[in-house]
C-alpha cells in the first residue's frame, strides 16, 4: 500500500517561507495569487494490506514525529 501524509501549518501561525514564496510568485507575474502557505508531503510505502491498521500507524507517526502539533496539522491518505 502507499500512503501520502500532508503536513501544513495551522491557521494563524506565521509562515515566513510561505510569505517569501508568495512574494516570488507575484514578482514572476503569476496572476491571481492571494497568499501562499507552504508545508510538507511524505509519500510512504507500507507493507501489509489492512487499511485501518495502516491508518492508525500513520496517525501515531504523525503525532510522534512527522508533525509538531503545536504549530502543524496533518492529513493521512491511503491509496487503495
Amino acid at each position, binding site marked *: 500500500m502507499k500512503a501520502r501524509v500532508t503536513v501544513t501549518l495551522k491557521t494563524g*501561525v*506565521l509562515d*515566513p*517561507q510561505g510569505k*517569501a514564496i508568495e512574494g516570488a510568485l507575484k514578482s514572476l507575474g503569476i496572476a491571481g495569487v492571494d497568499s501562499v502557505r507552504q508545508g*510538507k508531503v511524505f509519500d510512504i510505502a507500507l507493507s501489509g494490506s489492512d487499511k485501518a491498521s495502516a491508518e492508525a500507524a500513520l496517525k501515531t507517526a504523525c503525532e*510522534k*514525529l*512527522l508533525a*509538531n502539533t*503545536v*504549530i502543524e496539522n496533518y492529513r493521512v491518505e491511503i491509496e487503495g
Partner: protein
Amino acid sequence: MKAAVITFPGSNREGDVAKALRQAGASVIPVWHAETKLPAGTDLVVLPGGFSYGDYLRTGAIAGRANIMDATRAHAARGGYVLGICNGFQIACEAGLLPGILMRNADLKFVCKRQHLTVERADTPYARAYAKGQVIDVCIAHGEGNYIADTDTLARLEGEGLVAFRYCDANGQVTPAANPNGSQNGIAGIYSPGFNVLGLMPHPENLIDGLTGGTDGRGMFESLMACRKAA
C-alpha cells in the same frame, strides 16, 4: 558538578560547551545520543548547539526523539538540570521539555553576530552570577530562532516569570530593532516551571575567554557550579 554533554549526529558545539563547563569547574562526560542511560550521578544534561540530523524534518525534531531523551526527560522530571543551547533549545522544545517551538527567522536569514541580552531574573540556578536587568554581550548563530508559543502558553511564561533572557540593544532596551529573529516578546531563552531546565538560542559558551571576544557567557556556567542536585 557532573555534566553529561549529549552528542547527536550533526552536533558541533559539544566541544566548546565542554570547555566552558570545565573552565567553571565541572567534570564533563560526553554521552552519545543512542545511549539509554545517563552516567550515574549526572547533575546536568547539556544539549549542545549544531545541526542535529542536518535540521531535516524540523530543527531538533529527530534528535528530540533520540534514545537518550527518555532518560533526559526523567532527569528533568526529578528536578535535574537540563541546559539546551541553540539547536539544544530546539531539541528541548521538540522533546517536550519546554513549551513552544523555534520557527524560521522572520526575515528568513541565518543570523550570526554579537547580540545583547537582558537577564530577566538572577535568582535561578543559571543566572545567579548575573544581576537582574544586567545587559550581557553574547553571540547568536541560527536560522530558526523565532520563538513561537500559543497565546495561553506565552501568557503563562510571562505570568510565571519563566522568560530567562530577552534580545535587547546595548542599553538594555527590548525593541523590535534589537530583535534578530522575530521571537515573540523578544524571547531569547525560557525556563521550565522549576527553573531546572533552560533553553536559549544564544551561545554563552562562545564568550568565556577574553582572547576570543569577551567573558559575559561565563556567568551561566559559574552559576550552575554553585548548584548540586543529585539526579
